């Protein structure tokens, strides 16, 4: 399977919105509200989206996932290294699933 029209459409759409956002940030820089409700809302979006991605995955997992998430957080807070934190999470979940038989 090379690709499909649906996949090409999805990728083209992803490209279009990404390019539009990146260009408009620069072009509208002087017009974007620097203060007020909209500015505060925009500032809080990335964190809220990431929290929404993480929370269900950790909660619906089992003990292994919760402990691995804690280890990931600990490594990131101490080492401030994204890759080290990710690697820790993956290795911990691998070992814990084996140990807990899950």
């Amino acid at each position, binding site marked *: 399977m*090379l*690709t*499909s029209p*649906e*996949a*090409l*459409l*999805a*990728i083209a*759409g*992803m*490209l279009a*919105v*990404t390019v539009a*956002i*990146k*260009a408009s*940030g*620069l*072009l*509208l*820089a002087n017009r*974007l509200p620097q203060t*007020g409700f*909209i500015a*505060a*809302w*925009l*500032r*809080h*979006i*990335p*964190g*809220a*989206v*990431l*929290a929404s*991605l*993480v*929370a*269900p*995955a*950790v909660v*619906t997992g089992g003990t292994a*996932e919760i402990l*691995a*998430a804690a280890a*990931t*957080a600990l490594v*990131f807070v101490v080492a401030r*290294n*994204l*890759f080290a*934190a*990710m690697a820790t*999470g*993956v*290795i911990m*979940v691998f070992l814990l*699933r084996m140990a807990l038989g899950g």
Partner: protein
Amino acid sequence: MQNPAAPAWTADHFFAGARACIPVAISVAAYGVVWGVLAKQAGLSLLEVMLMSGLVFAGSAQFVALDLWTATPSTLPIGPIILATLIVNLRYLLLTATMRPLVRPGTEKRSAAAMWLLSDENWAMTVGEMAKGRGSIAFLVGGGTTVWCFWMVATVFGRLIGSAIDDPTKYGLDFAFTATFLALLLGMWKGKADLLPWLVAALVAIISAKLIPGSWYILTGGIAGSFAGAIAERRRGYAHQS
């Protein structure tokens, strides 16, 4: 408002940026490999991996897209994938806006097009240069070129070795998403004001994930959490004034 004193587009700046971004590009490559492995699992073909990495070039949006991707084209949720990309990439509005002082008069269109190569990593390096009174669009583009090459090679490599890894859950690789997002989230912590929006987002997402099928919990949680944060900030603002 352009800045006449902004540095010109020179090859020097381009190569300085390209060199400066090699260390961060290595860590980009590391999770590019993970993305490639997961892309194989999600059912993306090699060509689709090359197109998505090469054209969309946005790591976190690509991770979210994999979450929604289906191997059968007829069930591919095109709308939700594009909408999720939009939401996850909204933060780039803020990042590219900070590049505004580097725009020379008459180079507006070129600069706006160059923003396509802006990633978190070369943005951070360029902001670091700006703090030292240097930095230019050419530096950003040079860094972006390095990051793009590493990302492309790493994701394709991951897709190719992905064939050798039949079941990612066996190696805990499914948890790479969660761990990466968690680390990215913690990196955004700026103070206690972040706690409320994150908790609201997490709670709404957990409840939505239980009630609504699909990945809409990303949107419901993201919207609820960011509004909670903005409302809380506004109320604090008023309290300060009175």
